[in-house]
């Protein structure tokens, strides 16, 4: 069986996952022995995994005296001859096409002499934003990778360069897609779609990136007027629901709405709903439960049913009850 790379680690049996692992000897794959895909094997730095002659080392491993050795604590994964160790807590590792949420850290309008001051290996790159996206380096958003007011097809003018801050300024949150990588591994983002762009009318919750999986759609609408954007980098945006017709329309793309820094009016009920969803996500993350639209919805219904206050969700016993409620059902349905 091939374990999909991007999928969560061997979940089919994670609950069965034996006590022997924590106390046992180093797990060692023999050359002929088939890797047991059903069992999540925990390893930690410095532990030998397998022979380097028969297997290739992947992420999270290194080769020392003919052995593949783990360099992070996590679970061993194998695809054919490639052995990797996946850490359960780490920074976001971007892939092209990922949907991420980021925060602008720097606006670089003219990159005078930037190459000189920091031995820049890249070529001089003017007109770009730098975006913190929970990765090991800040992402880059080029002026050419955003939609500008006045239609998608509009050409960039020099005046646009000068008013970059009127589109995004330091501290602004945005949702974007990973477009490509630079030679040094930094990612480049784009917001050239009506789905992407500046975020407002809500709040950000940050969770470990491993808890967000690739879904069909990372934009979800919950009943009670809350929108959810699950960034693959672990940043989650919870906001007031926006009517679809409000964002549609080629010509209706106006700078006012897209790059506005002003929140709409949000009524109390929506505010409560946003707070409730946020706290649900915090609770799920604290128990390391993967976050999907379905589980959030289920937890939300549970919370509404119990009619508990949004803030009470964070209390230990309520949180435990919530986790129990959304996860016990899973075990019943585990067969399929």
């Amino acid at each position: 069986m091939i374990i999909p790379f991007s999928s969560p680690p061997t979940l089919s049996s994670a609950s069965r996952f034996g006590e022997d692992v924590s106390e046992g000897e180093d797990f060692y794959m023999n050359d002929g022995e088939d890797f047991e895909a059903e069992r999540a094997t925990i390893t930690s730095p410095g532990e030998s995994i397998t022979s380097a002659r028969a297997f290739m080392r992947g992420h999270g491993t290194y080769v020392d005296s003919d052995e593949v050795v783990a360099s992070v604590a996590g679970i061993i994964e194998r695809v054919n001859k490639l052995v990797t160790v996946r850490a359960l807590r780490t920074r976001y590792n971007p892939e092209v096409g990922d949907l991420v949420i980021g925060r602008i850290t720097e606006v670089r309008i003219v990159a005078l002499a930037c190459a000189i001051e920091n031995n820049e290996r890249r070529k001089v790159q003017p007109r770009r934003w730098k975006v913190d996206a929970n990765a090991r380096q800040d992402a880059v958003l080029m002026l050419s990778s955003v939609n500008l007011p006045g239609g998608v097809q509009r050409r960039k003018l020099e005046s646009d360069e000068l008013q970059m801050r009127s589109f995004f300024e330091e501290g602004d949150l945005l949702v974007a897609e990973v477009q490509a990588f630079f030679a040094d591994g930094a990612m480049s983002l784009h917001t050239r779609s009506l789905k992407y762009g500046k975020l407002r009318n809500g709040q950000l919750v940050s969770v470990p990136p491993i808890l967000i999986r690739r879904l069909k759609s990372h934009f979800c609408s919950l009943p009670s007027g809350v929108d959810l954007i699950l960034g693959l980098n672990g940043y989650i945006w919870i906001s007031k629901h926006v009517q679809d017709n409000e964002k549609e329309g080629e010509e209706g793309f106006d700078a006012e709405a897209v790059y506005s820094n002003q929140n709409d009016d949000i009524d109390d009920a929506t505010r409560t709903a946003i707070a409730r969803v946020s706290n649900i996500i915090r609770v799920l993350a604290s128990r390391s439960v993967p976050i999907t639209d379905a589980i959030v919805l289920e937890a939300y219904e549970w919370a509404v049913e119990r009619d508990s206050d949004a803030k009470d969700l964070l209390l230990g016993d309520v949180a435990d009850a919530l986790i129990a409620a959304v996860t016990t059902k899973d075990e019943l349905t585990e067969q399929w």
Partner: protein
Amino acid sequence: MPVVLPGEVIQTQHKTIKLGPGLQQISNPEEKTAMTVTRAGTLEQNAKGNQFWVEGNSRRYVPAAQEPVIGIVSARQGEGWRVDIGYAHQASLDGLAFEGASRRNRPNLKVNSLVYARVSLAHKDMEPELECFDAQTRKAEGFGELKGGFLVRCSLKMSRNLLNPNYFLLPLLGSRFPLDTALGTNGRVWISAKEVKQIIVAARCIEAADPDGGGMDQNAIKKFISTLDL
């Protein structure tokens, strides 16, 4: 060769003279060519007597146009590189100042690689500039990246000695084993030979013969080589 000190005034009969390092022209009402010394050392002149310079034992290199130097690439800068040549400031080397270089096809120098280059611009108020070809012919003429071998650092005096074809050391070494050298005037000498041992011998001989170090003469060096493991 008279020893001169800063501030001394030297006069010559020649109408047109060239001044080297350590000398400065002074305006002279009597229509005689005069110069003042800015550095302590010995005053040297060429055979014709129309070129003057002061030979000193200073350690800090000051670039002068057309001098060959050995630099260490310290960073990439736009289309070129910044190069350490032992001067107080970094020099810049344009990516197009190489034989056969074009916008599409530029040499790929890594940070910390060695280049043998010529000073193309040395002005007291500007950053020095280097080139790795002859600007007229656009031929490399031996300049370019130095690969392999070893870099020996010596005094400025020693590097000028080595550039003198009559100096004994390089022919002496060459008679023992074949070696390639690139001589910079900035107190850096690059040596390459077949064996690691030979390079070490050459490096130790340069150090031993350096007037600022061992200061050995030809006979002493000969004896010294015979004690080394070759």
